[in-house]
């Protein structure tokens, strides 16, 4: 086998392992504790990605989409029955008043990007 082929096999194997590690073995981001209100930037995902909010209180979550990808044009908090269109560069507020503790994921309209609301 020629050297270039060996090199391609080696680099390819590294590429596959790297892709696996990079995307699938990433650790969940640390949660951000929110009291009353939080701004979540929507750009290649959600930042902060994981927030914790108090039970039985109204918390405002302001989504601000900076990313032109149509993938992120909607945010869905299905446990709270919320599907909101996020216009580019405009703040969209969602109010949550959860009555039960637990973890509630949210995602973009096509379910490619994910975030989480933890209710304590």
């Amino acid at each position, binding site marked *: 086998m020629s050297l270039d082929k060996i090199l391609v096999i080696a680099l390819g194997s590294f590429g596959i392992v790297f892709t696996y590690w990079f995307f699938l073995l990433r650790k969940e981001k640390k949660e951000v504790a929110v009291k009353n209100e939080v701004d979540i930037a929507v750009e290649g995902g959600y930042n902060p990605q994981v927030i914790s909010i108090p039970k039985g209180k109204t918390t405002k979550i302001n989504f601000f989409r900076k990313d032109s990808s149509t993938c992120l044009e909607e945010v869905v908090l299905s446990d709270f029955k919320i599907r909101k269109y996020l216009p580019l560069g405009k703040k969209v507020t969602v109010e949550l008043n959860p009555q039960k503790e637990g973890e509630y994921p949210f995602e973009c309209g096509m*379910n490619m990007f994910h975030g989480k609301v933890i209710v304590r």
Partner: protein
Amino acid sequence: MITKTFSIKGMHCASCVRLIEKAVGKLGGVESCNVNLATERATVTYNPKQVSDEDLSSAVSSVGYSVMEEVDEDREKKEKEAELNKLRIKVVVSLFLGGLIVWGSFPGLMETAPQILRNFFVQLLLATPVQFWAGLSFYQATIPALKNRTANMDTLVALGTTVAYTYSVIVTFFPKVIMQTGIEPEAYFDVATIIIGLILLGRFFEARAKMGTSEAIKKLIGLQAKTARVVRDNKEVDIPIEQVVVGDVIRVRPGEKIPVDGMILEGESAVDESMVTGESVPVDKKIDDSVVGATMNKTGTFTYKATKVGKDTMLSQIIKLVSDAQGSKAPIQRIADLIASYFVPIVIMLAILTFVVWYVFGPQPAFLFAMLNAIAVLIIACPCAMGLATPTAIMVGTGIGAEHGILIKDAQSLETAHRVNTIIFDKTGTLTQGKPEVTNIKPLNKSFGADEILRLASSLEKGSEHSLAEPIVKKAQEKKLKPEKVMQFGAVPGQGIEGLIGGEKVVLGNRKLMEKEKINIEEYGKEIEGLENEGKTVMMLGIKNNLVGLIAVADIVKESAKEAVSKLKKMGIETVMITGDNEKTARAIARQVGIDRVLAEVLPSQKEAEVRRIQQEGKSVAMVGDGINDAPALAAADIGMAMGSGTDVAIEAADITLVNKDLQSIASAIALSKKTMKTIKMNLVWAFGYNIILIPVAMGVLYPVFGVLLNPIFASAAMALSSISVVGNSLLLKKVRI
């Protein structure tokens, strides 16, 4: 001067209104500020040069309230259209420039092209704006996503086109280097540009189609009247609907929209309620009848008192319910969710694998085969179709429901309803009108006609408080029969009533009373039994120890009941009736309607247990009731269906609310659920099947046997078509007749 309406949070009394109006009115440049407590909205007219939205917001905050956002129902549409327009320009430019490059580089076509187009430098010039202007959004999405260690559809397109573009740039500037590796120097600018053009084109159509999926909500919002003609200080004034408060007296003329919910004070008319309830025939309305906002007044003029405004109106409740349902997730989506989270990284790994395998084992020029096939894998993969498969169908399905007066609480209810194989009807008020009426008057003696019997019976019943007295008295009033004076009136508990009319003893009651009075009824036994077998309660009228007539009273079965039950049976659904009535009456009614199974003499508190008992037989049960008296039974059933208005109580208790109160809508709701689920399943099969079949084809599995490879340009066309077809299939649901 401009006028904007803002929604305001935190108000709870009239003084809040004044406080906000004062705080905002104080600002220089504000001409007027009207705050409406009921709708929680402030309408401000101001000069935007002197005062900004932020100034208004901080003025409101300074007195302790918060401005939520500007209320503009059209905003979303306008913004989406603006984004679509930008996309359209990008599509046209990239396909035009890409087309020129294809002309200058595609074998068989390039020979006809002017020499200048065959020049790689010219192609580079044409391709660069496509790559970095039209394709900018792919990079803009990819870079922050990579920072978060996530990837999506855009990542795949950015990767694939960047590889093709970069290789072509190298070929353009360093053709000799490429030639040294034994490869003919050939640029692939056409691949990069056409992929971008086609994928953007796909997005354009997809976005247009997606706007169609949420049309139902927009239609509902559009129903809202803009103004109301309110009577204030004896004068009629037109005011914006936001300023109508509970208690306002509103005048509605023929052909006008009824602005808010209320009750008629004066006048009568026919009202077309089809837009809200799906009921196609105009409903007659008179004094004390309720009217629903956003419905259309047809013939008469009337005034009515506003009872519900703003977010409390039936229309607002319906809008909220539909939009909630569209935000919820169907359980069937879970599998798509799971796969979506691994999909893009797996595709990237497969693309790398494809490159390696083709490079090591493929024919010459191995590098070109490896590169083009890896790009094809990146481009053909379509995670979007999987993500769109369920929500788009749910959005269309719940929207169609709302148009037909079928309000579905959430996606889960829509999904569960398709499995229902048993329907339990609450009898009173659901299968029947819930109001007993006189159904038969049978004279048995030639000297007493039907009217005379009714007149005598109603004269006696006037003094009675029994539930069966009301329909008899009402019937006599309808016929304008004058009651006789009754002396020595008396009620015999459990038997009937008696009294003296014109000095003669008149009795009205059941068999026991006749026995007591020694009136022989044997001669008419068959007639009496016949009526009883029809589920009616028979009352006998005796005068001077002779039976002179029979009056039958029954809770009349709704006209649509029989057809509704037969429709359900045709769908293979077992029908059950639950009632507190005795077995005989219950069976008689069940026979009339065609119900399979009867649960009689069930106390209201036992209904829930009966529902659970049927569920234990392995049945998937829908319970149909009014949503108010049978809330526990509705909640216990797999699907609770309330026949009622869009009131809070009914909506809370039920999974599906039939605002049109039409029993036939039960079958429609189940049919809608079945059709929506079929669409979702088709979408999922398509979305998964597409990826499962075409990714291996792009990798080149067909090459060794058939010599088939997938050109990256065709891959991009297939990918664009894939998401459009999923959204398109969901939109086809709109054509379904339910």
